[in-house]
């Protein structure tokens, strides 16, 4: 690939969201969201609790089914009934607030289950790759441990590894540090920062404003089910325009 093509590829729109709405019964959570995410971008979503930011994230890989609108990953419409959602999800990693490691499986089994059962890798290939990734997060000695024996920070790093094992094109993070004890937040954010530096496309819901400032290409403020503001981090934090965002930032930046 020559440099020009590579640059074009870097700029490629990867995720396209068109007029996305979501109701939970009578509760209108998302009220029409339009957004495009380019390859390599790190998008950080912030907003008051209940604003719909997690729902938006979960709509991207259909853990929540949108009520209307379209979600596209490259040239595949994610929320079309004709799409094989399992194929799409192989390309989208998801990291959850509560880690959700498989409680009945060892760390190694947690990481290799999906690629092996989906016949993407042999058990040996998968194990080898898993060990490499575990070494990266300094947890290779935990390969045979069960999730319950690990700390929250360790579990979350392994959850990230479990997603990376699938070679995803984009990683979604749903408040990955919100359930952690304060002293463990740093170790998880560090892994995420490294991932960002390597060029991974990331969409991240978080309350860690320092992380947003440091890593984000764009920060999005969601409130009342719509995108109220979108800006580069410097602009976003120093010159917020929307009054609700100013109010929100005054509360979280103390």
């Amino acid at each position, binding site marked *: 690939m020559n440099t020009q093509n590579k640059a074009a590829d870097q700029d490629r729109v990867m995720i396209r969201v068109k007029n996305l709405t979501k109701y939970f019964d009578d509760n209108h959570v998302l009220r029409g969201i339009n957004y495009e995410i380019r390859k390599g971008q790190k998008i950080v979503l912030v907003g008051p609790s209940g604003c719909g930011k997690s729902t938006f994230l979960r709509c991207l*890989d259909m*853990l929540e089914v949108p009520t209307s609108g379209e979600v596209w990953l490259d040239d595949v419409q994610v929320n079309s*009934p004709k799409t094989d959602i*399992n*194929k799409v*999800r*192989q390309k*989208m*990693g*998801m990291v*959850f607030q*509560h880690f*959700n*490691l*498989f*409680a*009945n*499986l*060892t760390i190694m089994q947690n990481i290799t*289950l*999906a690629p092996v*059962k*989906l016949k993407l890798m042999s058990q040996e290939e998968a194990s080898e790759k898993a060990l490499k990734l575990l070494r990266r997060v300094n947890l290779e000695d935990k390969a045979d441990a*069960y999730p*319950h*024996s690990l700390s929250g920070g360790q579990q979350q790093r392994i*959850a990230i590894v*479990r*997603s990376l094992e*699938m070679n995803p094109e984009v990683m979604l993070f749903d408040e990955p540090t919100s359930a952690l004890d304060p002293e463990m937040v740093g170790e998880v954010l560090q892994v995420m920062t490294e991932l960002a530096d390597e060029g991974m496309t990331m969409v991240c819901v978080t309350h860690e404003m320092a992380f947003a400032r440091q890593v984000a290409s764009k920060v999005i403020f969601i409130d009342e089910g719509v995108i109220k503001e979108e800006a580069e981090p410097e602009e976003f934090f120093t010159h917020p325009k929307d009054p609700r965002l100013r109010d929100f930032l005054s509360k979280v930046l103390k």
Partner: protein
Amino acid sequence: MNSIVEQFNRAFIVNNRWTLYFKGLGTTIEVAFFAAILGIVIGTVACLANMAKRRNGKRPIFSWIAYAYIDVIRGTPTVIQLMIMWFVIMKNSTNGVLVASLSFGLNSGAYVAEIIRGGIQAVDQGQMEAGRSLGLSRTQTMMYVVLPQAFKNAFPSLLNEFITLLKETAIVGYVGMSDLTRVANQISTKTYQPFMPLVGAAVIYFVVIKVLTILFNKLERKLRESDNR
């Protein structure tokens, strides 16, 4: 004093009567064993069918069948189910153990289905979401992640169900099978001394269930290894 020894003799020793108890126990265990296996298989299938939903949230037809099966079995007496199986559905069969095992297996399956449903619902929703987010199908996540945890959750209740099942087989005397209970009853009508045969049968049931409980607890401890902190 003498009469106690005498009673014991007449209940167990004379004519090698003790062998009859063990033959009866053999029948009891045979029926309970096959019924338990059948119950687990039918129960798991019925549970998954009962919980199945289409994309639009509606139940498919097989789900309604499973629902009706569980409903009917739980709503009618076991002894009537057994008699219907014996005198109506399989009246031409000469294999008593087969008919009884089928009947009790179908009965137990309905209860097992509900026990497993409870076990599945106790598994954190996040486990299914994590499996799905990696690209595994619902069925795959169910098989490798949710069901193993569900069975572990359901273990104490399943043991309970097997104990109940073993004791419930005592009603096969209704259709003329010679299980442990019926043998004890027959001997007591022969000797006119019901105390020894009935207490003897009770002791045998108790010992078998005690052994079963110990084995299950050992197995459960093994399954709980992944919970060790």
